[in-house]
């Protein structure tokens, strides 16, 4: 099962790699007139999807009464971080000017870039401490630290809503997904307190 989850997490990257390979061999063939922009958005979309998927695992485990699902959370969370890093790299290469100055300018002048970068920055220590060894070393503090993922998720949704120009549909769908997860958690914690 673990290998299936890993392969699922890697499959968008494999699809992108396939498109990129064909695009490089025959420019314009797979990713349209502005392939850099297409790559940036593809990676960004999958970052937020994996982030919300990782957040969904504990809800699913409760709702389906399958606590063993929790062990897949790390893989999915790391996938979110990985896609996020690639998203930032592609943004740097294709949409920001490709120089350090242009990136600093974007971070200081464009709040939605700052918000997205903050989300990724928050995910970084979570990715580093995702190993079992760090989990044991940090003990109860590990759980508190990893609650930061809720902040990262909220920032990621603000990022996507803020950059929307044409349609708010995506931002609303991801926002609804996030709100649903929060509602389930509130409900679950209320119930466990009563019991």
């Amino acid at each position, binding site marked *: 099962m673990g290998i299936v989850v890993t392969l699922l997490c890697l499959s968008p990257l494999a699809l992108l790699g396939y498109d990129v390979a064909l695009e490089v061999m025959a420019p314009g063939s797979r990713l349209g007139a*502005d392939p850099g922009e297409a790559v940036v958005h593809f990676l960004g979309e999958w970052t937020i999807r994996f982030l919300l998927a990782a957040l969904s695992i504990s809800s699913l485990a409760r709702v389906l009464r399958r606590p063993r699902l929790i062990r897949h959370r790390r893989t999915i969370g790391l996938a979110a971080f990985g896609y996020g890093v690639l998203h930032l790299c592609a943004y740097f290469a294709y949409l920001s000017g490709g120089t350090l100055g242009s990136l600093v300018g974007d971070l200081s002048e464009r709040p939605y870039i700052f918000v997205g970068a903050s989300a990724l920055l928050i995910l970084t220590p979570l990715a580093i401490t995702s190993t079992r060894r760090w989990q044991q070393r940090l003990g109860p503090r590990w759980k508190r630290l990893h609650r930061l993922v809720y902040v990262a998720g909220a920032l990621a949704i603000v990022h996507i809503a803020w950059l929307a120009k044409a349609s708010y549909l995506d931002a609303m769908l991801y926002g609804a997904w996030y709100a649903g997860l929060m509602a389930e958690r509130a409900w679950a914690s209320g119930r466990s307190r009563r019991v």
Partner: protein
Amino acid sequence: MASAATVAAGALLPAIGHANPLAQLNFRPDSNPPADAVTPQAIAMAYNNFYEFGTAKDDPAANAQRLTIDPWSVEVAGEVAKPGLYALEDILKPHALEERIYRLRCVEAWSMVVPWIGFPLGDLIKRFEPTGDAKYVEFTTLYRPEEMPGARSIFSGIRFPYVEGLRLDEAYHPLAILAVGMYGDRLPKQNGAPLRLVVPWKYGFKSIKSIVKIRLTARQPRTTWNLSAPQEYGFYANVNPAVDHPRWSQKTERRLPSSLLRPNRMDTLPFNGYGEEVASLYADMNLRKNY
């Protein structure tokens, strides 16, 4: 060169064999083409912003083909001596068509170079005899939800019908044209058939597509993107690398087609490189304020 060949072919070959004899346009080739390489036609036809047909760049090419563009008429209204509903044929009849190869700079920081076919906008406006009160021109795009899936979306960031406008002296500038074709052919539907505006020194959203109404007004028209996000999209919207869009830089642009290995990035020029011709229109204006 290619356009000269098209003219020759159009002049020599009889229209027999064409389903639509109007499909072949006769036009004078651009006598002063820019040094920029023309964007491949396939890209100009596949990468479009036309939100009435959807917000993705490939939506218009996919969804616009069901649009009915024949018959087509244009309502002329407002501060003119000759208002009325004009058939497209009557709008076009007196105007000799010419090719204009223009840079097109989108506010989203990508650009193309497109060989349009059209005629000066000012020549048309003068035919309707604007009154002394006419200071602006307002254009409206067709709004026909049953043929426009994007216009039915409840998540749209803009309201329809799409409205754009120019100051009258901008509209009279010889670089401002109404286009009926591109790349030697009639306009594809996704590019704004059958009649669109092209104002090369302004961001692309000013160059309104599929026009059904032209209204001369005394007051500045309330234009679609300006109403949607006034701090991001000004009424003037002249291409200006010195004034960034609040969410992205306007200093450079991606000339399409771009590629993954060598992103085709170049500096954006004031007035999209047409400053010599048009800067005088804005001589006493603060272009940071009037972005």
